[in-house]
């Protein structure tokens, strides 16, 4: 297996991360624009990926953009927005076949980098505005997206849990924005905001694949340049995220016409990626609900047949732990009790040596596997940028291997139950 090599350079107004690696048959280029989550800008930021996907000025429709991608041997461009902690990140990813594996081809990579640059820096505008017809159309696309969350019950329940749990915190903001903002947004003000974003967001560009580092550096720096201006007000001046912690856990029950109830429980971990205790928190989550050998799966599913899935996950940069399961509506109290009991067991230190060592090994395995996927490797490297902490994946792995059971119980003692959210069927009250 090949060790990860990452060269980071501060050039042309961005951080360029070059990650040469022979594992893959493609070259991945990823740009990440980061800014603090903000109610004023969230819907604009949610819309921008849809606008950019409609093609840059020199390929000014979705069709023309796609023809160009097809000509680059079916290159794939994806653009989306996401939340990491209190940040909003717009990611643009271009994956293109490595010309090494295609006989008599040498221009694919250069063409790909040029297209990538055009998509970001030369959008399809009319004057100082996004092209109005496309703008109108894509507002509608985003509106449909916002509405369709209601049809994915797991995502919907998760969103509602965060609404209730993080009321008043930036993290509460919906990643797809808000329908009520759309009417008043114009091609002009959205374009003006995009210009601001291009100059002021923190920008990281990753290039990953089987290439020569000097040649790639030359290629990227000659094609991609940005005119950076330091943010005046809203970047990087958030120090401590404010948490709307509860005195005691709140219970929220909502009803819809559904077959299966979704039970989601939110906890505050009071620990994030930056903290020394983070590796122990990962191990905690693994023992509680990260794997099919974890306490939640064994007890909720295998021992009591209450659910098909029962697991937990971390929001590493915000400090949340979310526990979730899909259950029969009548089993709410019983399932909740069993789920909460697993948390108490963790707090009481009911962790065997084998649980600890196996979970550590599973987490290490998971991290190594993530690095066998190009996007996974980039996401893992980007964690450090978000957390502003230099902790290489290999160092994280070493720290996980070193976690002791006392550290896990110490982490457990800091975790607080915040909100229990139940989305259940309309017929009858949940049984007591």
């Amino acid at each position, binding site marked *: *297996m*090949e060790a990860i090599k990452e060269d980071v350079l501060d050039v042309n107004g961005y951080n360029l991360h070059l990650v040469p*690696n022979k*594992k893959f*048959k*493609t070259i991945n280029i990823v740009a990440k624009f980061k800014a603090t989550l903000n109610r004023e800008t969230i819907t604009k930021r949610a819309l921008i990926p849809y606008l950019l996907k409609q093609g840059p000025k020199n390929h000014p*429709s*979705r*069709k*023309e953009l*796609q*023809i160009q*991608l*097809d*000509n680059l*041997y*079916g290159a*794939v461009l994806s653009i989306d927005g996401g939340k990491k902690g209190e940040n909003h990140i717009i990611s643009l990813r271009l*994956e*293109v*076949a490595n010309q090494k*594996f295609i006989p008599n081809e040498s221009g694919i990579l250069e063409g790909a980098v040029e297209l990538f640059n055009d998509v970001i820096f030369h959008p399809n505008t009319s004057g100082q505005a996004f092209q109005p017809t496309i703008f109108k*159309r894509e507002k*509608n*696309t985003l509106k*449909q*997206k916002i*509405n*369709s969350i*209601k*049809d*994915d*019950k797991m995502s919907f329940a998760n969103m509602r849990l965060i609404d209730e749990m993080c009321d008043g915190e930036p993290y509460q903001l919906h990643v797809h924005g808000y329908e009520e903002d759309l009417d008043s947004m114009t091609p002009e003000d959205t374009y003006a905001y995009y210009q601001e974003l291009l100059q002021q967001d923190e920008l990281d560009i990753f290039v990953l694949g089987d290439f020569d580092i000097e040649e790639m550096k030359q290629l990227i720096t000659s094609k991609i340049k940005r005119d950076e201006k330091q943010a005046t007000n809203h970047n990087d001046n958030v120090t401590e995220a404010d948490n709307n912690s509860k005195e005691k856990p709140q219970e929220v029950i909502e009803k819809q016409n559904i*077959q*299966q109830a979704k039970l989601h429980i939110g906890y505050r971990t009071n620990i994030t990626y930056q903290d020394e205790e983070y590796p122990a928190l990962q191990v905690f989550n693994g023992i509680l609900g990260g*794997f*099919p*050998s974890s306490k939640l799966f*064994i007890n909720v599913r*295998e021992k009591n*047949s*209450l659910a*098909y899935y029962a697991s937990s996950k971390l929001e590493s940069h915000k400090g949340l732990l979310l526990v979730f399961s*899909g*259950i*029969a509506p009548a089993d709410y109290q019983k399932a909740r009790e069993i789920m909460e009991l697993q948390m108490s067991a963790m707090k009481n230190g009911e962790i065997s040596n*084998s649980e600890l060592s*196996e*979970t550590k*090994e*599973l987490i*290490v*395995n*998971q991290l*190594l*596997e993530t*690095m*066998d*996927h*190009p996007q996974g490797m980039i996401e893992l490297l980007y964690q450090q940028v978000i957390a502003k902490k230099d902790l290489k994946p290999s160092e994280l792995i070493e720290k996980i291997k070193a976690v002791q059971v006392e550290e896990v119980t110490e982490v457990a003692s800091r975790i607080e139950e915040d909100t229990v959210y139940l989305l259940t069927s309309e017929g009858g009250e949940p049984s007591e």
Partner: protein
Amino acid sequence: MSRKTYDNINETVYLERLDNGLTVFLLPKPEMSKTYGIFSTNYGSIDQTFVPIGNNEKITVPEGIAHFLEHKLFEKEDRDVFTDFGKQGASANAYTSFTKTAYLFSATNHIEDNVKTLIDFVQDPYFSEQSVEKEKGIIAQEIKMYDDQPDWQSFMGTIKTMFKNHPVNVDIAGTVESINSITKDDLYTCYNTFYHPENMILFIAGNFDPENMMSLVKENQAAKEFEKMNEIVRDFPDEPEQVGMKENKIVMPVSVSKCTVGIKEANKELDRDEFLKRDLLQDMLLNFYFSKSGQFYQELYDDNLIDDSFYFEMNLDRNFGYTLIGGNSDNPDQLANKIKELLMTTNSETIQEEDFERMKKKKIGQLLRSMNSLEFIASKHIHYHTLGIDFFDLIPEIQSLTIDDVNHYLKHWISEEKLAVCKIVAE
């Protein structure tokens, strides 16, 4: 053990058919951290009627049994196999499709132990009345979860609309009612017939030494005894070429309506060359017309009938095949009519040389991209091998397709009787 190298993509595959009939593929990838192993039987939800091993009479088993069996193989008399893999730092999983049931692990350590665990747990079933009963509650929740998913309902709904008799029209997990009738004896009957090594493929890809790995598998298999097996007799009803129903409407509480047009691409087994040609050309044509560079996509977009959720997919397998085209839409009727109308024009179209070159480039690039994933390589290898095709030869196969091939195919691709529509609406 035979060894085959593919210079164009820089891969080497080792293959051996063992004495007991098991097919073993090894793909060493020393630059990867992990190893991925998949043990797959040529048995899925459609194999409901068959002659059990050692019998002469065909039987029909309850819907959803292949999937139920998949769940139950993980449970042994004294333990859960997930725990065994967990102890060895591996993550394990399994899935059941229309035509396959597959068990898999990935690990970065204890590779040989994990391979043994994979083979041994699949080849050592333990079913009891009690554990079968216990599983019914878990699978019922899995079925309920799918009942609430409009995308899944739309997928299965379209298949049911197209296929009148073929058991591809049955939900893979069955129904709460059908799974409640499953007994431990049913499980053993299916297991003994379909989990014979003759009917199975083991594929291991990743960071290991191929010679040592093959010896390990051979030793493991030599120590076990299996009944002699003749070819499995499976029974499928006659399926007409035309769709079962032209239209189907499913009412469920959705906030955005959905509409899917299905093309019934195959209703019986195809010979190898015909299969391969259809498999490649169909996907290339769908991409040509309906991907974002496509003329049809553009028309649907301009008519304001589709949004970001628009998709198309195709699947050609043992003795059935279909294409699905659709997505969310405020006007499901208009969308269905427009897609059908566009498809009906293809008979008189001709693909130009320049466009065909672009179609081939795109397909080759897609394949190279998918080869970053060990999981994808392994499952596709198994899929194509079962149908007599070498997955790693697909790139040269694509390069050898001609403009006449595609235009000939296009002329006969669509006819109205092969089109079906399924809508999901709130009402």
